């Protein structure tokens, strides 16, 4: 079991010794089930840190903001940022290291093991509780979720409330860390790509109908882009707001700017947005499932990323986020890469 007091103690020491600038961790959320990201600067606040099944956020996303903030400062604080990571999040750090977006010295990683469970899917839990408000949730030792509501406690088996990505997760403990909490439990999954196979088995028309129904809902709020730790480009292909428009910019110049995709959420544009998003994350997505969680319209975006993860593994024998020194998927090749589709 992860000992929360150890985590608090280490965090306290780090802040007391001024080894880190601040610590990004989880604190109690407001609705009982989900935790909330917390930025802890004062040693006395470390008591607010929590570790529970509702810690599903991928905090590595905040490293993006930290980097931008640091770039703006005149005399930046060079100390690392402490960050609490799960197994999946630690792979995100590996990808950021691989892409040289951050340096290893920029982060002090407090790795927390998911052990035999993982994190919950809020929607699944809400369904189980039938409108009751949870006050506290925790895992017991037999892979049950113990939910405390005003009517007492109930036990729900883990498999019924675990987030889908946790069921399909190949690693359950951080692969890169400075301090490790919990036990390293080897857990294998035989159904790493089960959700993808469900769609793969449909016919071409069924696939199209499925995705059309999903993407028709998209309102192009870009929440999936905002939450993704890998979407850190200063300028995104789908919006041209970051083009510098000055008083000298002529109308002709503005008109001639490349507009790859229209902003309106019409079906054709939304399709291209989601395909491009998936392609840009090929070999980089670590399947933290945040894009799908934040989607206000419940589009199963994760299935797209997972499909490319599967193809990267089966076609090119490439696995994401285990080795920060490997070349990225699309900037490397092998002589024996498949080419049976080429005429």
């Amino acid at each position, binding site marked *: 079991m992860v000992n929360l007091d150890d985590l608090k103690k280490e965090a306290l020491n780090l802040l007391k010794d001024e080894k880190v600038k601040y610590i990004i961790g989880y604190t109690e959320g407001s609705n009982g089930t989900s935790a909330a990201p917390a930025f802890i600067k004062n040693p006395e606040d470390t008591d607010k840190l929590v570790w529970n099944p509702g810690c599903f956020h991928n905090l590595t996303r905040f490293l993006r903001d930290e980097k931008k903030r640091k770039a703006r400062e005149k005399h930046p604080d060079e100390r690392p940022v402490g960050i609490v990571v799960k197994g999946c999040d630690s792979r995100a750090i590996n990808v950021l290291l691989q892409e040289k977006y951050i340096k290893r010295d920029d982060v002090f990683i407090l790795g927390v093991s998911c052990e035999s469970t993982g994190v919950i899917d809020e929607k699944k839990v809400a369904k189980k509780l039938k409108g009751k408000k949870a006050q506290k949730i925790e895992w017991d030792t037999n892979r049950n979720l113990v939910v405390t509501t005003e009517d007492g406690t109930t036990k729900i088996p883990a498999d019924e409330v675990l987030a889908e990505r946790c069921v399909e997760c190949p690693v359950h403990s951080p692969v890169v860390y400075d301090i490790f909490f919990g036990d390293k439990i080897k857990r294998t999954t035989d159904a790493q790509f089960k959700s993808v196979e469900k*769609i*793969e088995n*449909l016919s*071409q*028309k*069924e*696939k*199209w*109908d*499925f*995705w*059309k129904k999903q993407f028709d809902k998209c309102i192009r709020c870009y929440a999936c882009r905002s939450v993704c730790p890998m979407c850190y480009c200063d300028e995104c*292909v789908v919006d041209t707001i970051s083009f510098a428009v000055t008083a000298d910019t002529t109308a002709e110049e503005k008109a001639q700017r490349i507009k*790859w*995709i*229209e902003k309106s959420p*019409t*079906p*054709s*544009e939304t*399709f*291209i947005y989601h*395909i*491009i998003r*998936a*392609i840009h994350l*090929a070999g980089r997505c670590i399947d933290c499932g945040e894009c799908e969680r934040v989607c206000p319209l419940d589009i199963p975006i994760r299935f*797209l990323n997972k*499909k*490319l993860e599967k*193809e*990267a593994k089966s*076609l*090119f024998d490439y696995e994401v986020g285990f080795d920060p020194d490997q070349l990225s*998927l*699309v*900037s*490397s*090749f092998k*002589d024996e*890469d*498949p*080419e049976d*589709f*080429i*005429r």
Partner: protein
Amino acid sequence: MAEEFEPKIVAFLCKWCSSAGSDLAGVSRMQYPPNVVPITVMCSGSVSPLYILSAFNKGADGVLVSGCHPGDCHYIKGNYYARRRIALVKELMEYIGLEPDRFQMSWVSAAEGIKYTKIIKDFVNILKPLGPQTNLRRSQ
């Protein structure tokens, strides 16, 4: 009688091999369908997936990406990168339910004018029964 459907093909040809190959087909007066719009790029490895989708978005019925044979790339390894990237695009297109046949890749060297005409002929024959591509086309 209704007019027969003539597909529009956008072909991204690399400057060093495929473009020269298509040139050879032209100067040798080889006959091939006029459905193709060639766009010369510096290397097949420079073709972003966004170019391909953008072509479909703006009205192409089929897209062809053509580069040098493996080992012949002017930039040593550009076509290897292209091969990997395009394999992913193809898989994803199939997964989303788009007709994977609308998108093809080929290796055409500067000496293969005949192969180029054959690829275009075959591609047109594949596209004709599929009809116009409407799934990704921008609505006016």
